[in-house]
C-alpha cells in the first residue's frame, strides 16, 4: 500500500511559506489537510517553519503516530498532525522511514506535546526519536518485547510481567542534595483512593511537598488499535464505546463521522440531530462524573450523589434508544442503529427540566464555598502558552483563556445552526476548570433544547446498502436485500483506500481519529488522538512545589479517563 494519493491537484496556498518548498511535496488532501511529505533530514526545519512563520502559525501539535506499510520500499511512516488556532488551517506532515534504520529527529524541542506521542510511537511501532529526553515504553509494560502495532506482531502474543520487573525511575536512587535523608519516595497509585482510574505517580516528597514527580500510564492499555485491525469497520464501534466510557456516544459518533467522510456519504438529517442530542447528554454525563469525582477527592461527598441522579435518568433515555446503559453502541456508519423510541421527545423534555435542578444544587453548595475555593484556587495553574505547547484542548484549555472549541472552530453535525456560548476562564487553575465545566453543562442543555425543537423527520440511516444493513422486513422477503446483508456481514464495508483525520469535540477536548484504509473490509490502521493523553503529559511538570492533596485535586480536575488515555 502506498502513501495516499492526493485527490485535488490545485497547488496548496501554504506551500510558498515553507523553506525549500520546491523540493517538498505539498498537496491538499481529501479531508482538507495540507499534506507535506518530507524526508527526515528536512523534517525539523519544516516543523519549525510551521510553528514560527506567522502565515503558518501552527501552535498546536495534535498527534504524532506511526503507520506500518510492510509492502512499501520504505516501511514506516511517521505522521504529524498540526493545527493553527488562529488561522484555522490543518497540516499533516508525513515522514517515510526505512525499516533498517527507523530513526527520526524529535519534535520535543519545538512542541512539548510531542513528548508522550513520540514515546508511544517508539513503544508500539519501534521508531526511535533522536534527542527525546525520555524515550521509554509508555503503554506496554517493562517486560514486553517487540513492537505491538507492527503488522508482523501476533495480536494475541502476551508477555508476563512479574512484580520484580516493575518500572522504577532512575532519579529515585540518586541523591537529591546533601540532606536527602529528608526526602521520601512514594507511589501514588495505580490502586489509589482517588476515583480516577489506574495511573501511577512516583513522587519525591520533602515533608508533604512534592519536589519531583513522574507519571506512569498504560495500566489499561487494551490494545484498541490492534483490535480494530482484526475487526470490520462496524465491529469497531463497541470498542470505541469503551474509550471514554463516561461519554460513550461521543466516541462512536466521532468514529462514524470519520468513516463517513472517507466514504463520501452523510448521515440523514434526523440522524445528525439525534446524534447531537445524545452527544450533548453524554457530555453532561461526563462532566457530572468528573465534577462528582473531583468533589469526592477534595472531601465533598454529597455532590457525587447529587450528580449521579441525573446520570441515572440519562441512562434511562440511552437505554430506551439503544438497549445499553453505559456502552450504547448506538452509532453506525451511515447514521444510527435504529429509530429512536416513540417517547423520545417526551423523555428529552423531562430531562431538560430535571437536570438543571441538580446542577443548581451543586452550584449552591460548592461554588462560593470558602473551603473549596481555598483548595482549588491557584492550584495547578497553567498559562495559555504552556497549555498550547503541551497540546491541551477542551475545557482545560478553555479554563486557561483560549476559546478553542471544535464545535465552533470546525463545525460538524450541524453545530453551526445552534446558538450557544463557549465558556472561558482566565486563571487556568482547578477552580477555573470546575467553573468551565459547570457552565458547559448549562450550555449543552441549551443546545439540546434547540435541537429537540427542530427534530426533522426521515430515516435514521443512509439507504446506501454498500454501507448500511438493509431494513429487516426487506431482508426477510427480498432476495436483493438478503444479498446486501450477507455481503455486508461477511465482507464488511469497503472503504476506499486512503487516509483521513476527523476530529470532534469530546468531553475532554479534541478527540481525533486518524483512519487509514487499504480498500478491504477491515481498517488498516486507526490512531485515536485522545485528549487526556496530551493533557496528562503536563501533569508531572505541574506537580512540582505542590502538596500531595493538591496533586489529587489537580488530577481529578484534569478529568483523566484511563480508557481514553491508554486505549
Amino acid at each position, binding site marked *: 500500500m502506498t502513501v495516499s494519493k492526493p485527490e485535488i491537484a490545485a497547488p496548496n496556498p501554504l506551500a510558498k511559506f515553507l523553506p525549500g518548498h520546491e523540493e517538498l511535496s505539498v498537496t491538499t488532501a481529501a479531508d482538507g489537510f495540507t499534506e507535506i511529505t518530507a524526508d527526515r533530514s528536512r523534517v525539523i526545519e519544516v516543523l519549525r517553519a510551521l510553528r514560527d512563520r506567522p502565515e503558518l502559525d501552527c501552535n498546536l501539535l495534535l498527534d504524532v503516530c506511526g503507520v506500518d506499510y510492510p509492502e512499501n520500499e520504505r516501511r514506516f511512516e511517521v505522521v504529524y498532525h498540526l493545527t493553527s488556532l488562529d488561522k484555522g488551517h490543518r497540516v499533516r506532515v508525513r515522514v517515510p522511514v526505512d525499516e533498517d534504520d527507523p530513526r527520526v529527529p524529535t519534535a520535543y524541542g519545538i512542541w512539548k506535546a510531542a513528548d508522550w506521542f513520540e514515546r508511544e510511537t517508539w513503544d508500539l511501532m519501534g521508531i526511535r526519536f533522536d534527542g527525546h529526553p525520555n524515550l521509554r515504553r509508555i503503554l506496554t509494560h517493562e517486560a514486553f518485547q517487540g513492537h505491538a502495532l507492527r503488522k508482523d506482531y501476533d495480536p494475541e502474543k502476551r508477555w508476563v510481567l512479574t512484580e520484580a520487573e516493575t518500572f522504577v525511575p532512575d532519579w529515585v536512587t540518586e541523591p537529591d542534595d546533601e540532606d536527602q535523608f529528608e526526602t521520601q519516595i512514594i507511589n501514588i497509585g495505580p490502586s489509589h483512593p482517588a476515583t480516577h*482510574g489506574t495511573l501511577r505517580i512516583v513522587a519525591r516528597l520533602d515533608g508533604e511537598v512534592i519536589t519531583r514527580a513522574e507519571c506512569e500510564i498504560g495500566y489499561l492499555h*487494551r490494545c484498541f488499535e490492534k483490535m480494530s485491525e482484526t475487526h470490520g469497520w462496524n465491529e469497531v464501534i463497541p470498542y470505541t464505546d469503551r474509550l471514554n466510557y463516561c461519554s460513550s456516544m461521543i466516541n462512536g459518533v466521532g468514529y462514524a463521522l470519520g468513516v463517513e467522510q472517507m466514504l463520501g456519504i452523510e448521515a440523514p438529517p434526523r440522524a445528525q440531530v439525534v446524534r447531537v442530542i445524545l452527544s450533548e447528554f453524554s457530555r453532561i454525563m461526563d462532566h457530572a462524573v468528573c465534577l462528582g469525582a473531583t468533589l469526592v477527592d477534595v472531601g465533598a461527598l454529597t455532590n457525587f450523589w447529587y450528580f449521579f441522579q441525573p446520570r441515572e435518568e440519562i441512562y434511562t433515555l440511552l437505554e430506551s434508544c439503544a438497549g445499553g446503559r453505559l456502552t450504547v453502541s448506538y452509532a453506525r456508519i451511515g447514521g444510527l442503529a435504529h429509530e429512536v423510541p416513540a417517547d423520545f421527545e417526551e423523555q428529552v423534555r423531562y430531562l431538560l427540566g430535571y437536570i438543571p435542578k441538580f446542577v443548581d444544587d451543586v452550584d449552591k453548595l460548592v461554588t462560593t464555598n470558602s473551603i473549596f475555593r481555598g483548595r482549588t484556587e491557584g492550584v495547578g495553574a497553567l498559562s495559555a502558552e504552556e497549555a498550547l505547547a503541551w497540546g491541551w484542548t477542551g475545557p482545560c484549555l478553555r479554563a486557561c483563556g483560549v476559546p478553542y472549541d471544535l464545535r465552533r472552530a470546525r463545525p460538524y453535525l450541524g453545530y453551526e445552526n445552534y446558538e450557544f456560548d463557549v465558556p472561558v476562564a482566565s486563571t487556568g487553575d482547578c477552580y477555573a476548570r470546575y467553573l468551565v465545566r459547570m457552565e458547559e453543562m448549562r450550555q449543552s442543555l441549551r443546545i439540546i433544547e434547540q435541537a429537540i425543537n427542530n427534530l426533522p423527520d426521515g430515516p435514521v440511516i443512509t439507504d446506501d446498502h454498500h454501507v448500511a444493513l438493509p431494513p429487516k422486513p426487506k431482508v426477510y422477503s427480498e432476495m436483493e436485500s438478503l444479498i446486501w446483508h450477507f455481503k455486508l456481514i461477511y465482507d464488511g464495508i469497503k472503504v476506499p483506500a486512503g487516509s483521513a483525520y476527523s476530529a470532534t469535540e469530546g468531553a475532554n477536548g479534541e478527540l481525533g481519529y486518524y483512519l487509514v484504509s487499504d480498500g478491504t473490509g477491515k481498517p488498516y490502521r486507526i490512531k485515536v488522538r485522545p485528549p487526556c493523553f496530551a493533557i496528562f503529559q503536563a501533569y508531572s511538570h505541574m506537580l512540582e512545589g505542590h502538596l500531595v492533596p493538591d496533586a489529587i485535586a489537580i488530577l481529578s480536575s484534569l478529568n483523566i479517563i484511563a480508557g481514553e488515555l491508554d486505549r
Partner: protein
Amino acid sequence: MRQPDGSSALLTTKLAAMLAWARKNSLWPLPFGTACCAIEFMSTVSSHYDLARFGAEVVRFSPRQSDMMIVAGTITDKMAPVVKRIYDQMAEPKYVVSMGACACTGGFYRAYHVVQGVDEFIPVDVYVPGCPPTPEALMEGIFKLQELIQSGETQYDRLKA
C-alpha cells in the same frame, strides 16, 4: 471443630453459622475499578441502587479494611502484579467478585496486553457477566456471594479446608 466421627459439635456449627451470617451482611467492598465497570459500580453505590442497604456501607479503597474485592474492569498484564499484591494484602476471610466480561474472561479483548480473566492468578468466587453488568446484576452477584458464605462454599473456605 470436628468430632471423631466427622460431624461438627453443635456449638461450633452454630458459631460458624453465626459468623457466616455476620460476615455476609457486612461485606465491605474494595472496588478494584479500572474501567467502565467501575462507573457501573459507582452507580450501584449511588442513590438509585444503594448497595449500602446490604451492608456494603464502607467502600474502602484500602485492602486492609475490606473483605470483598470487586474486580471491575479490564486487568492488563501491567496491572496484574498490582492486583495480586492487593489481593495478598487483604486480611482473611476474603472474597472476590469478578464483575464484567473483561475481568471474567478478557471479554472481547483477545489482545497482547490483556489478562484473559482475573482467575489466572487469584481465586474468584462469583462471576458477573455483562458489559458492563447492570447494577441489579452486580447486586445479584453479591447475593450469590452471601449464599456461598452462608453455606461455606467460597474459595476461601475451600482453601482453608
